């Protein structure tokens, strides 16, 4: 099993902390799912930071600060430096956004920031696409985890480019990969894990469900089922039917 910069996760699920109806519902989603990583962010102090910090620390999970909303390498690097001090972790979910409508990564800024941060000792989790050349540049920069999108952030569309993701997974067998963004249903999570990805990262699909705690649990179960399937040797597909019940010994009626 691939690890995340030396850390083996108890469950292959990373969960965001945003957009829940209340802090109590967010806590319930973490408790119900057993998610092993919580993503967090830094924003301007308006008085609520300390309480949130106390709460996320109480979850007992690994914290993965993000650079959400950064549109340049410089912004992302400064945010990462601030996050490392605040959250006391060298893990950083590196987002450098290139388009405000699609929220797709800016590949050039992403590589630039990854090079700076890896050289500075960060353990970088880059939010990227399924582009294999970009992935190679990120690995060259020092990234040992990649987080390709399934679909645009918050879209709930699932895995938009199965072929591209499968190619990416096969191209870097040593690199841990997390499907980050775009998951809408537990079946998407199972599909990602069945394809050999190492974890899923989601937020909106859980936070905006009618019952976030139950949906978080559903995603966790699906991810675990997919992971088990991936290591169990899935059968190949065939064009024609093959009877599963033996023909030998069938009665002549």
């Amino acid at each position, binding site marked *: 099993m691939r690890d995340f910069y030396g850390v083996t996760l108890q469950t292959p699920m990373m969960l965001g902390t945003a957009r829940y109806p209340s802090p109590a519902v967010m806590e319930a989603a973490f408790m119900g799912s057993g998610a092993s990583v919580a993503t967090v962010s830094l924003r301007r102090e308006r008085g609520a930071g*300390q309480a*949130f910090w106390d709460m996320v620390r109480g979850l007992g999970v690994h914290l993965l600060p993000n650079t959400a909303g950064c549109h340049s390498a410089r*912004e992302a690097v400064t945010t990462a430096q601030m996050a490392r001090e605040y959250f006391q972790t060298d893990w950083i979910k590196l987002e450098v956004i290139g388009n405000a409508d699609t929220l797709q990564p800016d590949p050039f800024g992403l590589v630039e920031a990854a090079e700076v941060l890896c050289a500075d000792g960060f353990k970088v989790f880059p939010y990227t696409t399924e582009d294999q050349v970009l992935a190679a540049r990120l690995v060259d920069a020092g990234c040992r985890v990649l987080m390709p999108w399934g679909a645009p952030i918050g879209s709930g569309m699932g895995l938009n480019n199965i072929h591209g993701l499968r190619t990416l997974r096969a191209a870097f067998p040593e690199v841990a990969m997390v499907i980050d963004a775009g998951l809408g249903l537990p079946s998407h999570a199972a599909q990602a894990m069945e394809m050999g990805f190492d974890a899923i990262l989601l937020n909106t699909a859980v936070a905006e469900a009618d019952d976030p705690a139950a949906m978080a649990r559903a995603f966790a179960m699906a991810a675990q089922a997919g992971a088990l399937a991936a290591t169990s040797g899935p059968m190949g597909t065939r064009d024609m039917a093959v009877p599963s019940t033996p023909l030998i010994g069938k009665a002549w009626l």
Partner: protein
Amino acid sequence: MQIDVNGAPHAITATDVAGALAELGWGEARVATALNGSFVPAAARATTALANGDRLEVLTAMQGG
């Protein structure tokens, strides 16, 4: 002097980042700071001088995806 704190203008008498935080009521708060777009580690706040027109960002933990 006049500086921007989290995007809003403030008149302060402090001359370094640590002093500004104390003056703004964040002396004991758990925050991360940046001055003019560059990170200022907590240990460097007392020795990081402020100039008129500087942009100080004072950030804290928030929900994120």
